[in-house]
């Protein structure tokens, strides 16, 4: 993988703006995610965290503007599936799993891009089992559920399937996790955080979006904070803990949000 002594930016956004009618949901956000690190993006509800991910992953082509660079290559404006092939993979707060097909197939779909020739070849001579999918299932502790449909799993396990699907992408360079801990209880969240740390230790680069300060402060290497679409603070967990702007946003001194 990479050389950990020289952390370079896997993902860098510059002056990213998302405009909905008169509302600026994301306003001029420039930030970086370094290789092999777990970067946190926090902010109160409605701060524009999910919108930021949507914009970066190409789901808001009509509303977003700015620059998104993946390992130094400008990728802004590419379609979502193209970005996925390029290595920008994501999960969803609302999971959005493929409910009709097995957990294994959920992961397999993300494995490879399908060309016309590839599809035909596969039709006449079906592929073999993908070893990498087995690895990921094992990594996430899902190997016993490979043949099940996602609807048969617990909420925590379903979250992991979402992570696994994003990890399975053959070319994944960075994983954007949208509130993966939402809906989990305290102990599940702590356990989930450990899984994420495990992924980072394996060399993966992650961006974790959440409003659970506990989780983010515990597991992240670097944290950015959005409030009303603007980047108001960045720093290490220790710095963020003592940053008056962060405290204000979370304790409501600057006026609450909806």
């Amino acid at each position, binding site marked *: 993988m990479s050389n950990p002594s020289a952390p370079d930016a896997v993902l860098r956004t510059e002056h990213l703006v998302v405009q909905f009618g008169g509302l600026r949901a994301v306003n001029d956000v420039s930030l970086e995610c370094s290789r092999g690190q777990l970067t946190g993006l926090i902010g109160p509800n409605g701060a524009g965290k999910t919108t930021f991910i949507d914009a970066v992953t190409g789901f808001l082509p009509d509303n977003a503007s700015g620059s998104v660079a993946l390992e130094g290559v400008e990728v802004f404006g590419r379609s979502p*599936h193209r970005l*996925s092939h390029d290595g920008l993979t994501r999960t969803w707060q609302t999971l959005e799993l493929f*409910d009709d*097909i097995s957990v294994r197939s959920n992961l*397999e779909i*993300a494995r490879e891009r399908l060309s016309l020739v590839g*599809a035909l070849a596969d039709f006449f001579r079906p592929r073999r089992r993908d070893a990498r999918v087995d690895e990921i299932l094992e990594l996430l502790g899902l190997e016993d559920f490979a043949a*099940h449909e996602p609807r048969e799993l*617990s909420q925590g*396990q379903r979250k992991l399937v979402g992570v696994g699907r994003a990890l399975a992408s053959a070319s994944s360079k960075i994983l954007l996790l949208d509130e993966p801990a939402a809906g989990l209880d305290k102990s599940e969240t702590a356990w989930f955080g450990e899984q994420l740390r495990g992924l980072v230790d394996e060399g993966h680069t992650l961006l974790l979006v959440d409003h659970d300060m506990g989780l983010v402060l515990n597991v992240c290497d670097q944290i950015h904070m959005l409030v009303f679409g603007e980047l108001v603070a960045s720093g290490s967990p220790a710095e963020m803990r003592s940053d008056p702007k962060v405290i204000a946003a979370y304790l409501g001194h600057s006026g609450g949000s909806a």
Partner: protein
Amino acid sequence: MAAGKLPGERRLRNRPLAEQIALAVLAVVGAAWAVAALIDTPVFFQPVLFGLGTGAIVAALALGLVVAYRASGVINFGHGAIATYVTYVYVSLTDTGDYPIPPLPNPLAPIEGIGGIELVDFPTMVGMGGPMHPALAMTVALSTAAVLGLIAHYAIFRPLRYAPVLAKVVASVGIMLFLQAAVVLRFGSRAKSADPIFPNDPVDFLGVRVGQDRFWLLGTVAVGTLALWLLFRYTRFGIATRASAENERFSTLLGFNADFQAGVSWVLASVLAGLVGILVAPITGVTPNLFTVLLISSLGAALLGRMSSFVIAAAAGLMLGVLDQELFRLEFEFAWIPDIGIRRALPFVVIALAMVVRGETLPSRGAVQAERLPEAYAPPITRGRMVGYGLLAAIAFWVTVFAPFQFRSGMQNTLIGVILALSLVVVTGYVGQISLMQMALAGVAAFAVGSFGTSAGLPMLLTLPLAVLSGLGFGLIAALPSLRTRGASLAIITLASGLAIEEIFFQRSGWFGLGRTTKEAPTPEIAGIEFGTTSEFVWGDGKIPTGVFGLFLLALAIGCCVSVMRLRRSRLGEQMLAVRANERAAAAAGVNVAAIKLSAFGIASFFAALGGALTAYKLGTYAQDSFGIFVSLSVLAFAYLGGISTVGGAIMAGTLFAEGIGIVVTNEWFIDVGPYTAYVAGFFLIATAVYNNEGIDGFQRRQLVALWNRLRGRRRSAPDKPPAGVGASNE
């Protein structure tokens, strides 16, 4: 939640720029035309006055569609059929005073069928004592409409509240088939008329002489539009309905009874439909298909109004009517305009424009959750199963070659039906894209068989691929708008595409058409060996149809079934299911959603075209009526009934198919269901959509699994340990 779904984004006033431009262009064209009309009034005005009549009907139907959609998020393809049914009730009451009873199943039928006797004479009409006064007849007919609305809501669409769009579309197509079949069964398919309601003395208007009833009709539509606008804008009922459409859960929490509102709206929509029919019947006369064909234009008008604006929908409806007549005049006046039925394709053009300009989806309702789609079951390949398939093929072989001739003929219909149903399994079952144009593609292939095979005299080995390619090409072109649409909008656009293909190509004879009687296919022949339905064959009793063409069909059908089974297991098949499950997530997982949809439409068009070409070879001489829009709808009906998402379902669908082996067996051994096929199919289609969306195939599979588990459970006292996590699902 993505900010793209903020409530404000959906509202009428925040139209995207492109849509504003489109509306502005329409306004400019209208103004230009008005100026031209002032210069040469009668010539320009005549089509308008004629067109306003049709336009008023289109507009009125569009109003009803909007009412139903706003209340329950359903685009009701059966709306026109409701109008037709109520109109026939009215005509019958004023004409003879008979109230029609919808055909009911005769519980004694099996006994009568087997015994060959008739025990009771089932009533078809109830006499009401001679011709009825129009006002009274209208009351009775509109009450019928109200009851139909209540049934539609409480028995069909309320249970489907959280169902996938596919189930709703299918149910409303079922309503259309059912009511239209009921009308044909009770009244035949000939046109009927009624005594005028509006005064129809001709008047001179700007130098044109027209019946004044048109103006009355127009005025009624205008008043209706205004009334609906006021109702939905200012009354508590209307506001609550709008609130429910925005967010059902929230409005329920606020104490509104969304269900009651929807029920009232359905009654309102049905009564509107009935009223349109009754008012129009004296002016144009009525046929069983009239309102359903006009409904396609209405769907376009309602879509322009985003299924929510009464005023825009009504105005667009009127404009469609005028434009139609205006184009008719132009085609008539200027010889250089090719007579290729441009005006017939108008609804399609309007709908396509509305879709492309508007993009994305219809305003999706904030319904609580969608139920799951029918399972695309891929049976595990076991030795027992292979033996089963072999047995099935052997039986099919025997029936195809050795059974009596009527069974052989039924088998041929079934085999073609299986291929046609497979086309829907791929595009609708696997990818979730509703296509109502498959028979139009089949028709393209069919006329290509006649043109390449008979007119050009090409050998079959060239003709068949060329025919299939023609259908495939049309399918891919017609699929292009589908890349930006889905769900019910896609159903409408494919319906309109199918109608456009039918109107432009099928009505005419010659190379690019089917004509009414003219098309002929050559006898299938490869390497000097003939294998048509009349060709001699060594096996069988020698009567027509001989088994040889059936064997050809059997080989192709088996090939198609195996291909689709493999497709389901292939990577492409998995990506198709991913797109069906969740387009956004599929895109994020690297699936090229547009490419997957196009390939699905391509594969489906291939099967549809193959089915059409084979139909041509089977029939020998054929015409447009085998490939019309209503045949497309019934193909969807049978495919859904059989099981839309499995190969087994397609085989089941083929069995039930019009004059398929299942129907032949029923006719021969039990009762003659012939004239009731569409009626019964419509009924079961609704029932399947509401109560069992996996069709017959899924139903029997579950029964078999349950039986198997019970047998196994009895054999082994200790059941297998249940996999951990099962049952520990969320909620």
